[in-house]
């Protein structure tokens, strides 16, 4: 394995470079995935059947809390990568752990929100609008859930193996994923919630 010491650890091998590049291509696919969900949502937004409309069920408080939690987690994982580049492994693990805790908080609020929707008669089967709403939110939520497990696996590996080209590479790729989820949430926040409540 050839090491290139002029680069940060996560870019230091040829395979590492490929991994990061490939993940960017994957994020391109993710853009299209969420774009399709948005296409569906915007098309079905006003087709509420006998169910409630968006304005009737959206509430600003939980949504705002979720937004702040996810924004902060995205900032914190950025700090984690910065600490990693400084070689400060303890700080990095702390930042990553805080990120995951914030993510867990986000997920908790989202689950609460889902339960609330079902409770007030806006379940998955109610109408085309609710189906597309819950599927879009649910896909994002599933990504966050997957990210929690993934992040946990990475923290464990960094703890066990220290900062190697592999673990640094994995951590960096995970940070890309997490930032991306925040970007998606910004669009959900703006064009599903705020637009719906406007």
């Amino acid at each position, binding site marked *: 394995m050839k090491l290139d010491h002029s680069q940060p650890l996560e870019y230091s091998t040829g395979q590492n470079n490929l991994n990061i590049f490939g993940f960017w291509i994957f994020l*391109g696919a993710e853009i299209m995935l969420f*774009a399709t969900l948005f296409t569906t949502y915007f*098309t079905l937004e006003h087709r509420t059947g006998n169910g409630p409309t968006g304005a009737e069920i959206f509430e600003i408080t939980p949504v705002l809390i979720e937004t*702040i939690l996810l924004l902060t987690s995205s*900032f914190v994982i950025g700090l984690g990568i910065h600490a990693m580049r400084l070689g400060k492994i303890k700080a990095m693990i702390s930042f990553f752990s805080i990120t995951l805790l914030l993510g867990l908080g986000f997920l908790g609020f989202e689950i609460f929100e889902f339960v609330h929707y079902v409770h007030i008669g806006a379940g998955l089967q109610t109408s085309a609008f609710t189906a597309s709403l819950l599927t879009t939110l649910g896909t994002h939520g599933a990504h966050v859930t997957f990210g929690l497990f993934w992040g946990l696996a990475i923290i464990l590996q960094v703890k066990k193996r220290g900062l190697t080209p592999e673990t640094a590479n994995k951590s960096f790729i995970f*940070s890309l994923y997490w930032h991306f989820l925040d970007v998606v949430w910004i669009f959900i926040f703006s064009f599903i919630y705020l637009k719906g409540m406007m």
Partner: protein
Amino acid sequence: MKELFPAKQVMGFVFSLILTAVALAVYFLDMSFAIGLTVLVVTAFIQALLQLVVFMHAGETKDKWSIYGNVYFMIFIALITIFGTLFLFNWDM
């Protein structure tokens, strides 16, 4: 401790909070749908760009142009898909 909080990222975070607050104006202030939507489009895309450049370091290697090219291509096709569909089903049917 200070070196763990680089100014660029802290500024980025503050800026994204401000953008969120601006976007919230469409909920708390009374404005027309067109103006509100414009505000949302502007704040959302600036914030996405902020994440891309400041937090995701999209431009830090020599693959910069492939990465940006890929992302912009996808966003372009994404917008075509969204607006093409709305064109067909909402504005022209």
